[in-house]
């Protein structure tokens, strides 16, 4: 069996890559996908620790995270569609109406 810290290290790498995506990309949809990647990395850590401690609560929490992510994607993509209709662009540098 693969020791559990390998999974934790992989989860850390995936989370950092997701954070990197949020920082370097300008396309709002790709930033959104990077957030999904970060959620997925956290889920992997949850399942790994559930396996380590022999409890199922971690897996149930992952299920709830998936449900919340689905809700978030539905509303977030509707917002992105509205922003595109208004500004004809989903570049986040263009979304500066609230800039003081």
């Amino acid at each position, binding site marked *: *069996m*693969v*020791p*559990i*810290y390998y*999974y934790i*290290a*992989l989860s*850390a*790498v*995936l989370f*950092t*890559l997701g*954070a*990197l995506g949020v*920082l*370097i*990309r*300008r*396309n709002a*949809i*790709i930033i959104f*996908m*990077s957030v*999904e*990647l970060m959620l*997925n990395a956290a*889920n*992997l850590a949850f*399942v*790994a620790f*559930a*396996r*380590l401690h*022999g409890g*199922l*609560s971690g*897996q*149930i929490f992952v*299920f*709830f995270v*998936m*449900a*919340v*992510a*689905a809700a978030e*994607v*539905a*509303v977030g*993509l*509707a917002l992105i*569609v*509205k922003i*595109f209709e208004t500004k004809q*662009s*989903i*570049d*986040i*540098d*263009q979304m500066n109406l609230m800039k003081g």
Partner: protein
Amino acid sequence: MNADFVLFGGLAIVTVLSALGMLFSRNAVYSALYLIFNFSTVAVFYLMLSAPFIALAQITVYAGAIMVLFLFVIMLLGAEQTGRTPPTWWMQPLALTLAAILILEGIYLIFTHRTSFPALQQTLGDFGDPLQIGELMFSNYLLAFEAVALLLLVAVIGAIFLSRGRKFR
């Protein structure tokens, strides 16, 4: 070195490379396809961690429903190409450096503290099967389950409200 390590190593390389492909693709459709690939390999990790229910939920909910929604929106908007405006020049090198430092630091810390992780026990035969998860979810976590059901309803109503046509305004 046994078969598990070979499987883990190969899949980990595929996972990290597909995440990098998602980050650095010029075309948003390719990014979404790389992310579907990434989610599928993570589902195999869930299977290796004896979580078959979560693995299948990952395939159907993430790789299926959520990513299809992403692909629909990308193709609907015709927003495959990234934005025109160049980012501030120092932003990308700084982010890449910080991410490299964070990854190295994380891996170093996890592997120097590896003795503090308890040893992995052999699980019982039915650990993580849908029956056990269902029993726990509808007893201890019933309130959370109902709250999530309400949240999904609110999200559906919100999405319909946001994307309603001009006629209903």
